[in-house]
């Protein structure tokens, strides 16, 4: 019988994607384009929050949106009604975006003329957390109807995000959602996470969020 021998490999399985993500970040830095990766469950309000963000920042920043969906154009069409350029990426069954898919989405955009590109990732709190998209910052939305226990179920997502938006706070009176408990759970997993309470429907908290985002973009562009 042939002799079995051991070969050392010691390779990160995601090394390829990480290298592509790093290359993308260098390209973004050279073009002074801030890339925000927005993640959440389906229905947490990513598209509406992006519409609110466009409304608040469109006079100050040149923006564009990359919409990722398994197989539809609905979200890109909504964004396009604002006059802002939206690129639709169909992931063809894939549950997340990785750096090469984002790279593809950026192909249709003139990076040098853009200050901010927002990626609307596939609605899912599991898979998108595992893949570096090349974004400068990662943001997630958790909406009140989803419940305050999500950090217990999807800890990884909370550890990779720079900012957490608690959306649909206009529903707070109708639910037993405990904002303090959620804040504590999110902070325990990630003490560096910045948290905003917003309602894309009423507009509450949107000014605080967009001011923060604008500051991030400005700092990145001047740095």
């Amino acid at each position: 019988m042939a002799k079995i021998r051991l070969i050392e490999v010691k390779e990160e399985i995601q090394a390829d994607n990480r290298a592509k993500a790093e290359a993308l970040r260098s390209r973004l830095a050279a073009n002074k384009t801030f890339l925000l990766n927005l993640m959440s469950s389906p229905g947490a309000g990513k598209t509406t929050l992006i519409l609110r963000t466009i409304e608040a920042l469109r006079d100050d920043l040149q923006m564009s949106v990359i919409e990722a969906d398994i197989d539809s154009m609905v979200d890109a069409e909504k964004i396009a009604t604002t006059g802002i350029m939206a690129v639709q990426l169909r992931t063809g069954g894939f549950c997340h975006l990785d750096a090469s898919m984002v790279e593809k989405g950026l192909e249709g955009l003139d990076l040098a003329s853009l200050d901010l590109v927002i990626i609307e990732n596939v609605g899912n709190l599991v898979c998108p957390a595992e893949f570096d998209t090349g974004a400068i910052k990662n943001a997630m939305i958790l909406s009140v109807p989803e419940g305050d226990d999500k950090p217990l179920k999807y800890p990884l997502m909370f550890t990779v995000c720079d900012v957490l938006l608690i959306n649909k706070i206009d529903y707070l009176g109708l639910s037993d959602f405990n904002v303090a408990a959620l804040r504590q759970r999110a902070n325990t997993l990630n003490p560096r996470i910045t948290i905003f309470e917003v309602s894309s429907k009423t507009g509450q908290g949107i000014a605080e969020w967009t001011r923060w985002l604008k500051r991030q973009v400005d700092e990145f562009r001047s740095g």
Partner: protein
Amino acid sequence: MHELPVTESILKIVLQHAPAESVSKIVRIFLEVGELSDLEDEWIQHYFDYLSKGTRAEKAELVIQRIPITFQCDACANRFEIKREALQDLQCPECGSTVCKLVAGKGYYVKNMEVI
């Protein structure tokens, strides 16, 4: 669902490390997967069996070892492991601080493999 692209990367990496001139067959592949990753062991093997057909890695067994979730305390620099279920009570066992940084338990690696 993301087991598929991850498995494609595993196959690519092992084939790169097992040149056809010196390796006729890959028998077992040892992986390390962070405890925080939601990868299903069973699905990785299923996808691998499918993707590796006709390659030197066909029928290889994947042996998955979990990397414990490890935090480092900001205050006293103590490193400690914690179970996924206990994350909500995260606290440095040395000094009691709750401000700690995740240092291990994410990501996945091909550690080594047995070949013929």
